[in-house]
């Protein structure tokens, strides 16, 4: 799966989780999205795990700072 496909799928997931149209880009982080709190972060992670059929580790989830890092992780796993 290439980056473009990952971003396209993530755009759908973000819209679904945050119930809003969100322009997903590598710099996007929790402070840019209303409602991206610790609870919705885990909901987002779980939805991504199911969509891409991958699993993140505790340390990976703790270190994520923006969508760019998330995409790099998905790319390495998917």
């Amino acid at each position, binding site marked *: 799966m290439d980056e473009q496909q990952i971003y396209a799928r993530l755009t759908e997931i973000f819209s679904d989780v945050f119930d809003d149209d969100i322009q997903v880009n590598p710099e996007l982080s929790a402070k840019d999205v209303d409602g991206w709190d*610790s609870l919705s972060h885990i909901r987002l992670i779980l939805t991504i795990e199911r969509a891409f059929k991958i699993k993140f580790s505790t*340390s990976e989830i*703790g270190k994520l700072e923006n969508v760019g890092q998330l995409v790099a992780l998905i790319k390495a796993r998917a």
Partner: protein
Amino acid sequence: MDTASFQFVFFGLAVAVLSNFSRSRVWRSVVLFVASLVFIGLLTHDPVSLLPLAGFLLLGYGCLMALEHGWARLMVWSILAIVFAYVWLKKYTFLPEQSFLHFPYFTLGLSYIFFRVLHLLIESGDGVEKRHVGFGVYLLYTLNFTTFVSGPIQRYDDFVRDQLTNEPPPLNAAIVGLQLERLVRGFFKVNVLAMFLQAYQQDAILQMGEMMPLNLKLYAAARLFALYPLFLYCNFSGYIDLVIAIARLMRITLPENFNRSFSAACVIDFWSQWHMTLSSWFKSYVYNPLLLALMRRISSLTIEPFLGVFCFFVTFFLVGIWHGRTSQFVIYGLLTGLGVSVNKLWQVALTQAMGRKSYKNLAKNPAYRAFGRGLNFSWFAFTLIWFWGDSKEIHGIFAALSPALWLGVWAAIWLSATILLALWEITRAALLSLKTSDGPMLTSRYARVVYASALGLAALFFTALLSQPAPGIVYKAF
């Protein structure tokens, strides 16, 4: 040396100067290692008292090696062994007295070593981080004198990034100036502000046990409640200012531990602005995995928010009980967990009742934020009674006034904190709005030099005049 004393500052500055003789990672690591050993040696003169700490470090390294060599199945047992060794060495009162070591030994720094060791074990055990942690680097990371006494809790990767490189973070005149200013600020906070706040609070505690008119007793009650959070902030954040500045002069960037904590408009925000590295550690290694595990098993959009509330409670209950080994810290943990989880429940309920957009607008409303700020401050002040008082003291304090009067004191502190913190925010914003061509006047080089000089002189004057040793750092006891 375990306080924010002149000796500690001069020791740190001397190590920083030595460390900068070469940028080589070997030189800087040797200096840091020797300085950390000297630092510990100055804290205890009995080598035998260090044996339990050495044993704890060896146990941690043994577990780490087992995980590094592919024994991932041992991760849970390794974590349990480290947690047990920690509560045993710290003599938590739920363990039988007879099981403890019956000789005086050194536990200073153990709590923060505990977090660093667990962090290494979890990251090695989850199989993602394929790295080898050498014994020398392990000791350097866990015994680093700048983070030994009270943190901040630095991640291993961040430590290695700055320490084990021949191109460490740059140091120039501007950066050195900022760190010296921070040293002065930290020293002033601990040795002047914290000292006076502690004296006023102690005076209020004594007055609570005396016969006096009701109005004076209510005033004493308000002071003993409200002054402790301010004292704790000055004491802890002042010490953190010192160690961050010293470390930066050694070309190590430590994480920040405070971010305008009392500006937080709710309890949840407060814990992401107060003792931030502790909250972040618990979020990474307790809240996230617990919530993820529960949500993997229970897939319901209706129940999810309540799982979040539950996980907040568990996480902050653990944050609370980590602070001490007696039953009163269980109460502190319960109150801390209760505050955060009720806050989350309130957010969930309002979002459901008003809709996300309306709630978002309400949360931005200045009056709502001001009342939230005041409520957070008064709640934190209330929970801290189980943090600073022993059981006899707590009983005496609550027996001095009726529950209704205590409620009145709390309401008065809420209202006062709401008004005073709002005024503080308005004043700060107004001062920052005064700008020169280089940016806000308040943060200009000249303003910094003036106020750092004033704080430095004041600190020298008060420490020389009062001739008192620097107050102990509260968090070194945990």
